[in-house]
Structure formats: structure tokens, C-alpha cells
């Protein structure tokens, strides 16, 4: 028999337990709310996404990448971007007027793009840098991982020949989103599929997942957790300086200085049956082959820097390659494959890297060292 006090205690604990259960169930209830979107075909949705490039928006997005890149000297920022979580605040008024802040707990690094110049603010060094001119070639940066930017880049790269199918709608950042699966039409590409969810009325991409071949988990996923389609104020899009901050300017073309070790750039017009495409002005030493999501780049390093790269890549888990007159290494990640080959008959070291599988790059590398081409 339950005493009066024990019964009262049970009732009070039951009340608390019910409250806790309700609080715990709220996220599940929220995610289980039905998603209502107007029906449209995958082709229509792709067209709408491609037409959304100039939409203004502001929001907060997070990307989570697992490229599995080896540690490369001087590329730690890129490795952090492509292996881990990146938190971003985003404002876009137009394709040439936007701002992306990368947040950490106690600092931030902001990139501003204005119609005339771009700026980088680093709160750690309290330095604002104005970048003069446009980068002809550049490394990946956080702004590339914002869902609309990544979705547009991937859809354009996949091209009209890629197969598109519909995906079940889902709720992203509190908005109903229509889904689209893109399967690239590029033999030898490491990209298996790209899933994009976009706001159906405007076509604004809200979430992107990119899968490598043989991977159950996306190699990269990025999504808005908060977004609204309003035009940001100019005060947000133009950098301002507070007291104690420093200011400097740099030339975007300075990047070519980082390629001092490049060889003469005498590369064939095709490799493994893939035609060479035009490189940006000033980067003739870099050969780009293939199209869309089956592209890879080739460059030739002079001097001994190539050999040290090969030994470093072997130490980081790369697979060694050896032939009668050459040594090399293969680095494979779910999306990116790289082959480094040093030949005693051809001066220097060839570096081949791209969204293609190991066999494609090995065949291309063997063509390169097979003299003459």
C-alpha cells in the first residue's frame, strides 16, 4: 500500500518526468513535421537552381568535409577546410558583392568581395588585407563551401549530360526543400553522386552532399542552419577598421610566385584520351585535362622539391610506385587522387591530381614519361 507521502512524491516526479519527456521529444516532433513542396521535375529544379546565382540572401551554414587529405606543408588551411567542420556566416547581395565569415569560438576570418576588390580580415592577427585584382587560379576557400556556391559550381561542372533524378523533400533551416540527385557522366570520375536540396520557389540551394565512389557517407556536406532571402545592408558588405588594427595590400597575381619551381610546361595536348583545356593566362605551365567532374591537372616540378614531396607522401600513407627508370607515389582519398612521378629520363617530377580514379592518373603518368609525346 502506497503511503500518502509516497504517492505525492510519485505524482511530483511523474510531473517532472512528463515535462522532461516533452522537452526531449520536441526536436523529434519538429523534424517529423510534414514537408510540403510543390511538385516539379528534376530538370525544372536544376534550371531553377542554375538561375538562382544572383539571389540575395543571408544566413548561417556549416560544412563538414572528410576528404582525408594528407598533411601538406603550406596547405594547412586547405586541409582544415576539407577535413572538418567549418562554421560560416554568409551575406550575399550579388555574385560580386558578398561576405563570408568563418567563425571559431574566439576568433573569425572574414572574406569580403566587392565589385572592385576583395578583402580578408583575420581577427587573430588583427589584419585587414586588400587583394588587388582577381585570382586567375586559387586554392579552395570557405566561400566555396557555402551551399549555393558549391551547388552552382558542381551543377555547372556536371554539365547538361549528367543524369538528374528527384529526391524526397526535406526540411532544411526550417524551410521545405525539394531534392535533386546528380549523377555525373564522366568515366573515371571519383564523384559518384551529388545530392542538392533547394528552396523550390526561388531555387536557392540549402543543402549539398557530395559522395565519392564506394563511400556510404558524403565526402562533403554543407547546409544552411539559418537562412533568409533579404538583401544585406552595404554596411555589412564593406569592411571597416577599428582601432589597433593593421592594413595591408597584396596582389592576387603574386600566387604565380608560389609556382617558381615549375618546369617549362611542355605538356601533351591529350592524356589518357582526355583533351587539354586552356589554362588561365599566366598559368601555361599547368595542364588541365578532361571536362566537368572528370578533370585532372598536371604540372612539372623542377629540382629536388618533387623527390621530397614523394618521400613525404609515402610517409603519410601514400602507395609507392616503382618502374625501371622512375619512382612515384599514389595518394587516394574518397574524392581526390594524386600521382607523383619522378623519372630519371625526363627531368623533374610530374604531379597529377584531380577528381579521377587512380587508374586514369597512372595511365596519364605513364604517357608523360614515355618519350616522346
Amino acid at each position: 500500500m502506497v503511503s500518502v507521502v509516497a504517492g505525492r512524491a510519485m505524482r511530483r516526479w511523474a510531473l517532472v518526468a512528463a515535462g522532461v519527456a516533452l522537452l526531449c521529444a520536441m526536436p523529434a516532433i519538429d523534424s517529423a513535421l510534414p514537408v510540403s513542396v510543390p511538385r516539379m521535375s528534376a530538370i525544372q529544379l536544376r534550371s531553377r537552381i542554375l538561375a538562382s546565382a544572383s539571389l540575395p540572401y543571408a544566413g548561417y551554414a556549416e560544412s563538414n568535409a572528410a576528404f582525408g587529405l594528407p598533411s601538406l606543408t603550406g596547405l594547412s588551411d586547405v586541409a582544415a577546410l576539407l577535413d572538418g567542420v567549418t562554421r560560416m556566416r554568409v551575406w550575399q547581395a550579388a555574385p560580386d558583392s558578398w561576405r563570408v565569415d568563418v567563425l571559431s569560438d574566439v576568433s573569425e576570418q572574414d572574406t569580403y568581395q566587392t565589385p572592385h576588390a576583395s578583402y580578408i580580415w583575420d581577427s587573430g592577427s588583427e589584419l585587414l588585407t586588400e587583394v588587388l585584382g582577381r585570382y586567375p587560379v586559387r586554392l579552395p576557400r570557405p566561400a566555396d563551401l557555402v551551399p549555393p556556391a558549391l551547388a552552382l559550381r558542381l551543377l555547372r561542372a556536371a554539365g547538361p549530360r549528367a543524369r538528374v533524378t528527384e529526391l524526397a523533400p526535406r526540411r532544411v533551416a526550417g524551410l521545405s526543400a525539394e531534392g535533386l540527385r546528380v549523377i555525373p557522366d564522366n568515366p573515371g570520375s571519383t564523384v559518384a553522386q551529388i545530392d542538392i536540396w533547394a528552396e523550390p520557389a526561388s531555387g536557392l540551394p540549402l543543402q549539398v552532399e557530395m559522395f565519392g565512389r564506394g563511400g556510404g557517407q558524403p565526402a562533403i556536406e554543407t547546409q544552411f542552419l539559418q537562412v533568409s532571402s533579404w538583401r544585406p545592408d552595404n554596411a555589412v558588405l564593406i569592411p571597416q577598421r577599428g582601432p589597433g588594427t593593421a592594413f595591408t595590400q597584396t596582389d592576387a597575381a603574386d600566387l604565380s610566385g608560389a609556382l617558381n619551381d615549375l618546369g617549362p610546361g611542355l605538356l601533351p595536348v591529350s592524356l589518357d584520351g582526355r583533351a587539354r583545356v586552356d589554362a588561365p593566362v599566366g598559368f601555361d605551365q599547368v595542364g588541365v585535362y578532361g571536362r566537368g567532374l572528370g578533370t585532372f591537372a598536371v604540372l612539372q616540378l623542377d629540382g629536388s622539391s618533387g623527390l621530397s614531396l614523394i618521400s613525404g607522401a609515402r610517409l603519410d600513407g601514400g602507395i609507392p610506385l616503382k618502374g625501371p627508370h622512375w619512382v612515384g607515389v599514389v595518394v587516394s582519398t574518397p574524392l581526390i587522387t594524386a600521382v607523383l612521378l619522378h623519372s630519371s629520363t625526363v627531368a623533374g617530377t610530374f604531379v597529377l591530381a584531380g577528381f579521377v580514379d587512380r587508374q586514369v592518373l597512372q595511365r596519364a603518368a605513364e604517357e608523360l614519361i614515355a618519350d616522346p609525346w
Partner: protein
Amino acid sequence: MIAVEQFKLLRRPRTWISIALLCALPVAVAVFIAVTHLAPPPGEGAAFLSAVVQDGSLYPAAALALVLPVFLPVAVALVAGDSIAGEATAGTLRYLLIRPVGRTRLLVAKLVAVITYVLLAVVSVTLTSYLTGVFLFGSKPPEAVGRPGNFQAGIPTGGVQAGSSATSLSGAPLTLVQLLERIAGAVALITVSMLGVAAIALFLSTVTDSVLGAAFGALAVLVGSEVLVTLNAAASIQPYLPTRYWLAWIDFFRQPIFWRDIQRGFGIQLVYVAVFLAAAWANFSTKDVTA
């Protein structure tokens, strides 16, 4: 009843000693930096510590960053853990309840006393660090901070804007009023965050008669939460952990203010306060008090 508990809190020497110790750490750090001129370089050391040399009025933000991770939660957990368990250990809980006072009212009075302590601690650290910062590093008048000579034609960022008092994490200048508003916002969020700690310790204080048991129990919850917050595999539960948004007060110093995590920080702490106070009420109101 509430007035009695407030009076007991305020006349205890340990209340003031613990607050004095909390204030002493930022003061000591400021003195070392002022004497040696060895502030951590930008991007290193505690948050905002490198910036205070430029402007001492920013020192409250650095001081809160110094005491928040360990010292403040320990002090709050000890005071809250002492609320009921301390009375039981001293053998005064029975006598307290002999008076015509309901247990719920006693719990509410204890809670208000803990809230008072948290407010006293956070505001004391803020005020003493503000005075210390301004005294040791100075607070530059706005017109002296602007450097119009640095402006370059055609470059919107060539010079520092006049009228600014400090620099936000986003590089944009903040006026003195903006700075004070943001410090007030940070104080509010930290206070609410500490109330979450206090609620857990208060609940444990109704479960055990050991003050240290209640305090260390609350601290164990916080340490466990901190471990999970840094674990990628626990990402699905991280938004619901008590310490997940503790550092969101720093978002007050971004430009524009990043409200998302601040709102979530307030929200999750209020949920913890509500849940653990309800549990404390359910446990204490029907507990068999023997001590």
C-alpha cells in the same frame, strides 16, 4: 524567508572571500601584463587579452574569458551545493523546517540567494576588471583613436574610423556605448549560464547531505559535457549539452552580433534551470528530512 536567506548569504565571509578571489585573478593578470608589457600576441592566449593593451575598457571581456571556464563554475557549484546540503550537514535543516515555512518556499528562497551570488560574482568581476583595465591600460577617448591620416583615397578601409572605442572580432569599430551594451549582454548570458550550473548543484544538494558531493556532482556534469562538446561523434547531442553555448557570449563582440548561438545559449540554460529546479522541488518537497 527570501530576505533571511539573502541576509545569511551576504553576511557570510566565504561569500565575499570567494568573490574577491574571482576578482583577484583578472587583476593579477592585468598587473603582470602592465608591468612586463608582455601581452599575448594577437590570436594567442585568452580571448581579448591581446586587445586590452590597446584599450583597457575591453578588459571585462578578457576577465570573463579568464574566470568562466573553471573558477566561476566551481564557485557557483560550491555555493549552490551548500544551499540545502549545508543546512543538513550543520544539522539546521530540521529546525528551519519546524518554522511555518513550506519546503517549496525554502527552496525558492535558496534559489534566489544563489541567483544573488551569481549576479554579485559576475558583476563584481566585470566592474573590478573594467576599473583595473582603464587604470592600467587607459581608455582612449574616441576622438584620439581615429587616425584620419591613414585614410587612402578610394579605399574604404584605409584608415580607422573616428569615434570608435574598441574593435570587434570582425574588425569593425565599436563606440563606447556599443561596447558597454555588449559587455552587459555578455554578463547576462554568463549569469544565465551559471544559473544552469546552480540549478544542477541545487538539485544534487537536495539529494545528498554532502556539500562537496553536490558541488563535485555538478562539476562532473560540466566536465562530462565539455568532453562531449569536443567529440565529433557526439554531434547529434551537442546542441543540448549544458556547456555547448557557454562561449556564445563572445558572439556579442562580432559585428553584426551573431544572435543564433546567443539565443540558443539562453534557451538551453533556461531549460536546464527549469528541469533541475523541478527535480529539486519534486525531491525536496517530499524528502524525509532527518538532519
